[in-house]
């Protein structure tokens, strides 16, 4: 059959019911996007033809969109035409201007695969620009070619499916393998290739989840590492500082809700949360904790009690139910990395954010005057004091920074966890484990500890389940401490005692 062009098919619409149906089918097989509005209008009884043979929709020329001067007679359709239209419109959705419609159509063509779709898919592929939809189209094309009777096409189909490397493609290949014995070797090869790809993708996704959990732990543990490492203060209210940071995000969001700044509420929450929690931290340190220096067990109990009161205050003010913190548009949805690895945007941002915070803190300790004084106090408090460093002020500032970072962690957590009064409780024990594992007083240790814990947790999860993985990690740390009681990155020399 000679390939009819779109233009030659136009006059046949409305010629007779049979001719209309044939023309619709032919248009459907061609994949010309101009056909879609025509056929839709025909289906809705809105397509008319003027006396001079032009096609008109709602008083406008169907092809050029100009106002049509002469009156048009509506084209009539019967059931046979309707059936043809439905098929053609379904296939033409693949070239629709709406991306979501195209994606859905490509998916549908893959499911209903038939050899007849090959030219349609080729036409659509030639036009498609979005990589996500191209991948779907290629998958559908591969599937359709595999069904066709053309041996070269079949080989190309197998190759395309292997290239796509999804679980769907694998299933299809397995299905076809029995009936296409001459292709068995190629199909087996393709399946092996897909298995390799799937395993790689799974590994990459597990790695991402592990890094994501690790970065969350890093954020939560960073402030703890500073207060614990520098001052030897166990701050059991640290989890509540994180929770306060998350609630600050909520308050900022509500305050900016109906203003033009609403889109900026999350970035603005970061300094806001830092200031709020740092202020509370300073008040706690100067008011209560400093009276207990040198008595870590008492400090632990004191801060636990304070945490309890903070938690209950938040529960009374904001209620016990979860509060909703929205994600800005640029953090929603997921990103498809090369190789088909899907990563959620908000978790990706949190990884970068955590690393940025870590770098900022390290730089502050390394290069600022405050950082220098802090390191001096860690090394030898008395000598630092004799050198004129006001250790009390350094303590207060250190505690402020530690608490402020907890608040920032709360901003990040508000994006992936429920904002409720006991938000912090879930992280505090893990954070302590990170600090103890990494080595007290070492930020690098905190980084390595957080990532190790996050990755181990996620690597164990598929085999042991989430809870047992957590238990196993805790037991692992207890055993690890046997070998290296001071953690991975222990301070050496006099600072250690």
């Amino acid at each position: 059959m000679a390939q009819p062009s779109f233009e030659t098919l136009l006059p046949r619409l409305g010629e007779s019911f049979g001719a209309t149906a044939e023309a619709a089918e032919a248009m459907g097989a061609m994949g010309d996007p101009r056909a879609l509005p025509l056929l839709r209008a025909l289906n809705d009884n809105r397509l008319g033809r003027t006396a001079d043979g032009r096609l008109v929709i709602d008083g406008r020329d169907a092809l050029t969109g100009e106002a049509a001067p002469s009156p048009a007679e509506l084209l009539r359709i019967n059931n046979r035409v309707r059936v043809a239209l439905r098929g053609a419109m379904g296939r033409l959705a693949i070239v629709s201007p709406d991306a979501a419609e195209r994606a859905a159509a490509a998916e549908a063509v893959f499911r209903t695969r038939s050899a007849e779709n090959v030219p349609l898919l080729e036409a659509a592929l030639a036009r498609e620009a979005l990589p996500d939809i191209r991948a779907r189209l290629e998958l559908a094309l591969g599937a359709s070619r595999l069904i066709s009777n053309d041996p070269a096409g079949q080989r190309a189909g197998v190759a395309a499916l292997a290239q796509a490397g999804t679980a769907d493609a694998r299933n299809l290949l397995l299905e076809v393998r029995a009936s296409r014995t001459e292709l068995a070797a190629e199909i087996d090869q393709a399946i092996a290739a897909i298995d390799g790809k799937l395993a790689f993708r799974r590994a990459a996704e597990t790695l991402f989840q592990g890094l994501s959990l690790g970065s969350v732990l890093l954020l939560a543990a960073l402030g703890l590492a500073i207060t614990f490492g520098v001052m030897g203060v166990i701050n059991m209210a640290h989890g509540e500082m994180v929770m306060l940071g998350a609630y600050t995000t909520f308050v900022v969001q509500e305050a900016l809700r109906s203003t033009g700044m609403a889109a900026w509420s999350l970035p603005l929450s970061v300094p806001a949360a830092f200031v709020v929690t740092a202020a509370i931290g300073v008040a706690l340190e100067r008011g209560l904790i400093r009276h207990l220096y040198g008595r870590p067990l008492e400090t632990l109990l004191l801060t636990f009690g304070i945490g309890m009161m903070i938690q209950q205050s938040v529960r009374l003010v904001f209620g016990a139910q979860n509060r909703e913190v929205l994600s800005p548009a640029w953090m929603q949805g997921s990103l498809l990395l090369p190789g088909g690895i899907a990563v959620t945007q908000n978790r990706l941002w949190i990884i970068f954010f955590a690393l940025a915070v870590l770098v900022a803190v390290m730089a502050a300790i390394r290069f600022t005057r405050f950082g220098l004084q802090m390191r001096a106090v860690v090394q030898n408090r008395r000598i630092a004091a004799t050198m004129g460093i006001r250790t009390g002020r350094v303590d207060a500032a250190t505690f402020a920074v530690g608490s402020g970072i907890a608040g920032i962690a709360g901003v990040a957590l508000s994006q992936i966890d429920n904002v409720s009064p006991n938000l912090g409780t879930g992280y505090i024990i893990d954070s302590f484990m990170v600090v103890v594992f990494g080595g007290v007083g070492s930020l690098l240790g905190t980084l390595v500890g957080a990532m190790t814990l996050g990755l181990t947790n996620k690597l164990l999860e598929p085999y042991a389940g989430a809870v047992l993985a957590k238990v196993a990690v805790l037991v692992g740390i207890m055993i690890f401490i046997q070998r290296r009681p001071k953690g991975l990155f222990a301070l050496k020399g006099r600072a250690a005692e």
Partner: protein
Amino acid sequence: MRRAILLACICTLAALPLLNMLPTDNPLHVSDFIITIVGKWLCYAILALSIDLAWGYAGILSLGHGAFFALGGYAIGMHLMRLIGPRGVYGHPILPDFMVFLGYTELPWFWWGFQSFPFAMAMALAVPGLLAFVVGYLAFRSRITGVYLSILTQALTYALMLAFFRNDMGFGGNNGFTDFKELLGFSLNTSSARMGLFYASLLALVVALALCANIVGSKLGRVLVAVRDGESRARFLGYDTLQHKLFIFVLSAMLAGLAGALYVPQVGIINPGEFSPGNSIEAVVWVAFGGRGTLVGAILGAFSVNALKTWLTSVAPDLWLFVLGAIFVAVTLLLPRGLIGLLEGRRK
């Protein structure tokens, strides 16, 4: 003088169930509610005593004693579940309801023997003791002390809580054990069973107090205090601090297990929530509030804080956590020797 006050307290407690038998219109009548509540406090007092023994005398601040308490409770809970027998909802002659529900066909091996009361009681002491031995040995051997040990024990009870929440652990998951029927042939909801449990708890508390008093008064007790105040010094003087600490830690865990075993039949339920780290740290505060390093102080703390809790949670439930938090703050900043210190200070 001290001895007389203590004796008077014990006699008052012992008289409570008798007053319960008076007719309800008698002004001295004590309600069933009070008996159950005080029975619970007696168990808490044993738990407080066990914490004080480790913390007040040996300087081992465990934030995981709730785990030993809960393990003791689970051991007796398993016995109580076995005694339900065919009276469960599903009417299975051997398997508890939750196992039938989860599709078990036979009793898991770790449930064997729990139909026997002596075995269950032995387990209520042995399991916490064994766990404390393993954890204590590993921790003390690598010289994990102070806050590190506290965090480690807290992680321990947290891990156990997560584990016991799982259905496939074979311990009833989320719901734990409840709907107990009888113990040693007594139906649990009769007043005679309540009285029996009350007296058993009181007796256990008195015996535990006597045992602890004996230990802290002995040479062992003095070595423990030395370890608490200067572990390296005690070690250099030739004492095996590991052995001493391990002994007291295991004993303390067994006492906590005993407290849990007495507690569960009285409240009629045990679930993984008992492992929650908050419970353990609350118990530590009873001890701190009463006065650590004095056995009577621990008991006093358990009674006074829990009395306050019972009263306040019925009058103003929202306030309780503020008050508890304030107790934490007050005890650490203002009352380092607790109520006992306050009382003794005034007497001087």
